């Protein structure tokens, strides 16, 4: 009982520190937006605005309040699920983001669904056959893919599959999707481009974790007990690699967050990331802040989940 209490406290600690980090991030995001924001009222009204009009707009946007007060107001709003209104469209940000967020989650989710199983399988196989031809081919391929930026992969993919072969659409508009087939066609290119990078990273880290376990004394001892190869990998090495693998998956998926921005722009995909890019262009600071917070929160959720998985998988932490 005390053991499970201990684990609960350990996990609670991780979650608390994630929440605290998120709080620090919110400070940073707000500070940065102060720095780069300039005067939104001026941006909206333009150079020729009269001082009275500017003052009036500032007051209505609470820009005349001191920064700490504005920060508090924004934070409390966020906590209540109300991130404020867009400076440009004047619409509530929540309503603008919600459908976009769903789209982005769909894109990221599909990518994860494709990349995680592929990566784990290839990574484990490469580790088992380390030093062999398969391992070397996978190694070279992953290094090659990791070193190419995703925008290049995406562009080349568009050139080949959309422009030259006409198999797939170059833009991923969701408007005319009405069948699974259409859905697959629309998503094929962005998901593939995104998956390339994450898969490559995950394969490398998974291979390293499994290799580590496979060269350990306990695997040698198990081999000398006559344990067959499959059981050696699945029963002995893999349980020890769960923690590192969970971390690898979390890190790769969080790299996905950065990739999403590029991919959504290239394929003109109506996701949250493109919303952010547009918002930066129009200096729509409340919108930028909110999207930044969403990205940070997703990152922290991924990393904390990996931490918790590692804790739960490790008997040394479970049974102190």
């Amino acid at each position, binding site marked *: 009982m005390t053991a499970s209490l201990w684990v609960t406290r350990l996990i609670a600690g991780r979650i608390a520190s994630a929440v605290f980090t998120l709080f620090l991030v919110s400070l940073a995001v707000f500070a940065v937006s102060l720095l780069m924001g300039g005067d939104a009222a001026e941006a909206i009204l333009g150079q020729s605005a009269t001082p009275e009009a500017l003052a009036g707009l500032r007051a209505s946007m609470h820009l005349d309040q001191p920064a700490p007060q504005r920060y508090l107001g924004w934070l409390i709003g966020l906590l209540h699920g109300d991130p404020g209104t867009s400076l440009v469209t004047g619409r509530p940000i929540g309503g603008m983001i919600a459908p976009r967020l769903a789209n982005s989650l769909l894109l990221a989710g599909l990518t994860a669904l494709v990349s995680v199983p592929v990566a784990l399988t290839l990574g484990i196989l490469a580790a088992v056959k380390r030093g062999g031809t398969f391992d070397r081919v996978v190694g070279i391929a992953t290094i090659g893919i990791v070193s190419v930026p995703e925008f290049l992969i995406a562009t080349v993919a568009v050139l080949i599959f959309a422009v030259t072969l006409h198999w797939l659409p170059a833009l991923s508009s969701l408007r005319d999707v009405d069948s699974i087939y259409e859905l697959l066609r629309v998503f094929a290119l962005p998901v593939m481009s995104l998956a390339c990078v994450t898969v490559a990273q995950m394969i490398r880290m998974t291979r390293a974790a499994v290799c580590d376990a496979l*060269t*350990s*004394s*306990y*695997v*040698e*001892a*198990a*081999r*000398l*007990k*006559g*344990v*067959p190869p499959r*059981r050696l990998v699945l*029963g*002995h090495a893999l*349980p*020890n690699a769960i923690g590192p693998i969970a971390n690898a998956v979390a890190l790769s998926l969080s790299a996905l967050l950065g990739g999403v921005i590029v991919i959504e722009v290239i394929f003109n995909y109506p996701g949250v990331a493109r919303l952010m890019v547009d918002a930066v262009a129009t200096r729509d600071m409340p919108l930028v802040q909110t999207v930044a917070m969403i990205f940070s929160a997703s990152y922290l959720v991924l990393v904390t989940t990996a931490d918790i998985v590692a804790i739960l*998988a*490790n*008997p*040394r932490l479970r*049974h102190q």
Partner: protein
Amino acid sequence: MTALVRLSGLQIAACKDGGVTSIVRDIDLCVEAGEVLALIGESGSGKTTIALALLGYARPGCRITGGEIEVAGHRIDRMDEAALRTLRGRVVAYVAQSAAAAFNPMLTIMRQVIEPALVHGLMDRAAAETKARGLFRALALPDPDTVGDRYPHQVSGGQLQRLMAAMALITDPALVIFDEPTTALDVTTQIEVLKAFKTVVRDLGTTAVYVSHDLAVVAQIADRICVLRGGTVQEQGKADQILHAPAHAYSRALVGAAAPRVPAEPIAMPPPAPGEAPLLELRDIVAGYGGLDANGRPKACILDKVSLTIRRGRTLGVIGESGSGKSTLARVVAGLHSAAQGYVNLNGVPLASRIADRSREDLRRVQLVFQNADTALNPAMRVGQTVGRPLTFFHGLRGRTRAAEVARLFDLVRLPAAIADRLPGELSGGQKQRVNLARALAARPDLLLCDEVTSALDPVVAEAVLDLLVDLRRELGVAYMFITHDIERVRAIADDVMVLYGGCQMELADARALGSGPHHPYSRLLMASVPHLKAGWLETTMDPFAPVPGQAGATADGCRFFSRCALAMPGTCDLVRPASLVADDRLIACHRELAEL
């Protein structure tokens, strides 16, 4: 009788950097059924490599290149990997040196112990578990019915080693290979494990190959001994013959190194001038990890009120098992670990507790020689440079004078001066430890802290390093704090001996007084646990684990040794910290009267 195990003309080669070097050559061996054969040798003698060949296994980078290997009628050298798999764990089983590393940390012990029986399809799970519990009992493991439900990190090293033996024996294999199974254990644990092994091997009539570097341990368990060096057999024969009438020169050297050392001649030192402060004085040192509680004691207390003095040119031996706090003691003196309470005086002047706050002169006077020369020497720096740097730092020597002094230091530690241009990787273990010593001596210290400086070395080499330490002391008049787990070594080199247990001082005695007169029960246990180079010693030595009824653990204030003490008095010992009994040449922390000890 027919041989159960037969090796003839065994050759094993290591493939490294494209080249192939032979590491084991022309091994011819036989083991008869029911016999225990010991393979003895230093590191690099090929003993483990040969033992693993009996499983048809060569470590990565090695290859069995020739010869015949036959175990229980199976020609192992002709088998492919799949056939070998059906043999390993069923016909030949293996007990590794470090069970702590050989058990998978993620799986329960029972699951791993019964795995050989399950993968070979010999029993169903229930039958295997029942059999495992029986073996746990035979190996004198505590809680035999529940110990299997635990994870490896939840049991002690000595217990894991016995659990590993249970894992090997679960399939009733024809041959069991014990690969240095007690080397990583404390002496008092080693004896407990050895007894358990010997009992099951005898009761089950197991045929075994026992790999070890420790002749005294082997003497307890082997019927025959095979002495190896550099991958070839030097001599083999009945245990008695090798132990008492070794024919080969190398066997004689091994037996010589294993025999108890003759204590060094006491070195006459001028009596201290009246009022002269001791070289080093520690008073009531409390040290540990974690924050301090209300009484100023750390949460995890590693050293608890330790006091000692070392006079100029004298040697204090500090002895204790793993976890006794002996290394922390050296680190406190060296300034690498700040004490929470107490003080350290050098020549009567308090030393700063952190190394960063010490003057260059204080740094020079106290030098630490690390246990492991492999990690203490910078692998990318020529050893002459390593030894020269302190000369520049402490004494401002440069250029030709520095080179001359480096040469003198190498001469002092009996190394050829030409070695200065080598990298640590090109030296043997003993040479590296000498360089390590020379580096410490370069500062011209008053006090050398030697932390287990011989424990990573092979016995013959360790003896030579000990001799060197004795000579250096005579020539230079340095004082030593000699920290070790080996009471025989301490007795041979020290003037005074301090025994630590669980961070507390159990006894402080004149080294010559050890072995006679009253002693702390723990000191007695330690002395009784050192294997003698004599067959049958194991049976006659006192049982250090004579069960003491109802002795769980003591309170934080009680005697640290309470739970293992045969003389403990519940109601007193577990509640009150013992005061020191004082005799003229010893101090013993115990509640008993001197006469009872």
